[in-house]
Structure formats: C-alpha cells, structure tokens
C-alpha cells in the first residue's frame, strides 16, 4: 500500500505536499487531523530509525497540533466579521512553496537542455593584435568574489583557522631586539630574509612595525633592494647606543 518510492523531502512543507498529493486531498480543505497523524507517524518512523530530525519538522508538528486544536474551538472572526479558518496560513505557505517547487522542476529541464550545448573549446589560433587588458579588468566579478579574494589573500599566510584567537608571543620590543641582534652580525639585511622563517602574519606585521620604530629612532636605515617587494636594512650611526639586552 505504502510501497511508493519516497522522494527526497526538502522539508516539512514538501512532506505535507506529498501527503496531500498521495491522499488526493484538496489543498484548501485539508483534513487536519489525518495529515497531522501522518506527519507524526513519519517523525516517529524517523525516530525509530534513530535518525536525527531537523528542528523544522518539530516546529511543523507543533503548528499542526495547534491548528488541530483551533479547529475544535468556535471560529474566530476577522474585522469584517468573517470566520477565520485556522488553516489559512499553512495553506498559503504550502501554495507559495508549491509554486517555486514547480518552477524548480522547469529549471531542471532547462538545465538538462543547456547541458547539451557545447561552447567553443580552443581559442589558441585566433590572432589578436594589441590586446587591451584594461577593458576586461574585473569582468563579471561580484561581492562574493571580493570576499573570497580577501580571505585567500589573508589565508595564504595563516595557519590557524580564522575564527580561532591565538595569542602570539611576540611584541614590538622583542622584534626590535631581534632585528638589532641580526643587524649586528651583518652589514645589510634583506627584509625578505628577515621574515623568511615567520609563518604567522601577525609576527610579520609586528616585525614590520618594529623596523619602522627603529628607523624612527635612527638605529637602522632602509634602502631600496634590487628585488620587488623587498628592501635592505642597514645599521645606522647611533645604533650602538641602544640596549639590546646582550
């Protein structure tokens, strides 16, 4: 009797629509206790199978029970004096959901049709003069792409997950000492070499600030490097006067 292949239920509304269709019920005149019972039995079955039931199903169960009770009471009336059917809200939700469910089936057909179409695969032999890349800067990008780009740019240097707060044992003073110690051994220091061993972004930033501090104090100077995104750090005149702790 019940040997119909149960489709995927996308939620309680989907399940209710299934019961309505299966029992060939009128959506505007749903026998509420019958459908409530079926719904509860479905939940019971899920429980017997030891399956986790999504919160939305409990919420719907409660809603159905409430409607059922209100059906037994004298009807409330609206401001026009007309009787309010306790089922109205549920019925509207069901119909609204059904509309989009129907369209989603059409979308499925469109998807299938579109998958039969293939686009040109190889553009290597099209001769192009003076490509104008500026015109295509940021073509078809959306905010989501922007967030992704931001996350990736930061994550590249990050080991720990974003939402975890990790306390790094690094201070500007420590990094100033560290730089001065290094610079006492070599005449020049590449910034990239200095940060080479550092995995955490924060440590690099702190080191960077320490460099700026030392420049301000006149302990070190900075010089352009032959490499992009790098610079040279060198000992400045009064560097010796500073305490480095060793």
């Amino acid at each position, binding site marked *: 009797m019940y040997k119909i292949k149960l489709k995927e239920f996308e939620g309680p509304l989907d399940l209710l629509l299934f019961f309505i269709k299966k*029992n060939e019920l009128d959506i505007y005149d749903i*026998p509420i206790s*019958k459908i409530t019972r079926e719904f509860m039995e479905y939940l019971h079955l899920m429980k017997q199978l030891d399956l986790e039931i999504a919160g939305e199903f409990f919420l719907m169960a409660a809603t159905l029970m409430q409607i059922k009770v209100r059906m037994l009471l004298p009807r409330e009336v609206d401001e026009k004096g007309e009787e309010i059917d306790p089922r109205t809200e549920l019925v509207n939700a069901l119909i609204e959901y059904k*509309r989009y469910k129907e369209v989603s089936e059409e979308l499925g057909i469109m998807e299938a049709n579109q998958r039969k179409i293939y686009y040109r695969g190889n553009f290597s032999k099209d001769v192009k003069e003076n490509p104008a890349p500026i015109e295509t800067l940021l073509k078809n990008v959306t*905010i989501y792409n922007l967030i992704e780009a931001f996350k990736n740019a930061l994550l590249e240097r990050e080991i720990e997950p974003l939402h975890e707060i990790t306390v790094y044992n690094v201070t500007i003073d420590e990094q100033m000492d560290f730089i001065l110690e290094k610079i006492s051994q070599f005449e020049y220091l590449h910034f990239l070499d200095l940060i080479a061993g550092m995995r955490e972004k924060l440590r690099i930033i702190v080191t960077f600030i320490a460099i700026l501090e030392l420049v301000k104090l006149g302990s070190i100077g900075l010089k352009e490097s032959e490499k992009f995104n790098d610079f040279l750090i060198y000992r400045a005149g009064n560097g010796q006067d500073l305490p480095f702790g060793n």
Partner: protein
Amino acid sequence: MDKIYHSVIEALVFASDEPITANEIVKAIKAIDGEETEITNADIENAVDKLNEKYTTQDLAFKILRLAGGFVFGTKPEFAKYLGFLSTEKSRRRLSQAALETLAIIAYKQPITKPELETIRGVNSDYMINQLLEKGLITIKGRAETVGRPLLYVTTNNFLKYFGLNKISDLPKPREIEEIVKDQDFLEQKRQLLKNAIEETMLEENSPAEENGN
C-alpha cells in the same frame, strides 16, 4: 551598416570565450575604425540574426546564442552525444532538487534575504546558499534595510548562462495561485473528495470529533 561588419561581428563573437555584448562589439569596432563609424547595438542584433540564418541554410553544427545579455557560439543539441565523448566538464554533477528549489526562489524574489528564503522553503538554507555562492550561481548584493540588516542575495550572470537564459525576465513564470488551485490536479482531487470523505468516515470511526475541520 557596412556588409563587411557582418564578418567582423562574426569573428568577434567566434573569438570570445564568454558571451560578448552588443555594446562591446560596437566599442571594439569604433576603437579600430573610429568613433564616427556608424554602427549601433540594433545593427549588431540584426547582423547576428542574418548570420544565424546563414548558418541554418549552410547546415552548420553551431550557431550564435543569446546568453546572459551577450552573444556566444554554441553547438546544436543533437551533437551532444558525440561531444560528451570529449569532455569531462559536462559530466559534472547536476544540481540537486534542493539547490534548484533554492535557486528558483532567489531568482524570482531577488534581492532576497536568508530569513525570507527560509520562510518559503520551510527549512534552514545555510548549506544551499553556500553551495550556490561557491558555484557562482548567486551572489551577495548589499544588505536589507530591515532589522539586523541581513545580506541580500541575487542571481549572477553565471546563473543565466547555466540555464541558457538571456535575461532574468526570460525565466518561466511561476503559476499564479489561482491557477494552481484551478489546476487539473486539484479539480481531480475535488472530484475525489466525495470518495475520500466516505473512506475517511469509515476510517475515522474511532474519533469522529476530530474531523470537524472538513
């Protein structure tokens, strides 16, 4: 418009890896032949129609499609089985029913917030939103002015391409509520009602009071 531009338009569309808009074509032609060149978006539209006529007459395996507001060459569907042999790209998984459903609601109600979407679907939709964002079928466009200023979601150009649409208004219309109610399905159900009522009465013998609702 000069006849020669048919070929230029053809070449531009053919050489573009993404749908190219009439605007872009006009811009490209004016950039080369001078701003005074007399060519409009309407000329491009006409030229594309003419080109497609030629492809049909000449029985070419592909033609120019209008997709996501632009033009792009695509094969006729009847060759799909042979082409499936080539590509692994097309064998990627189709969207799930839940994804299609979520997309349908976003497409028609856009811009839409997550709470609004979840009210219609009746289920938590975090996972689906994330999937669709990752697939580039939807994106975020600002925030609603309501309490909590939730993010607003809209469909993307990729969505149009994926479903073969030129613009969002080309989507099939959802049926009106009255239509759904008048639907054959439901009329049939009404006819069934009497039968059901009898059955139910028999089934409900133990608890007749409960069926006040009908």
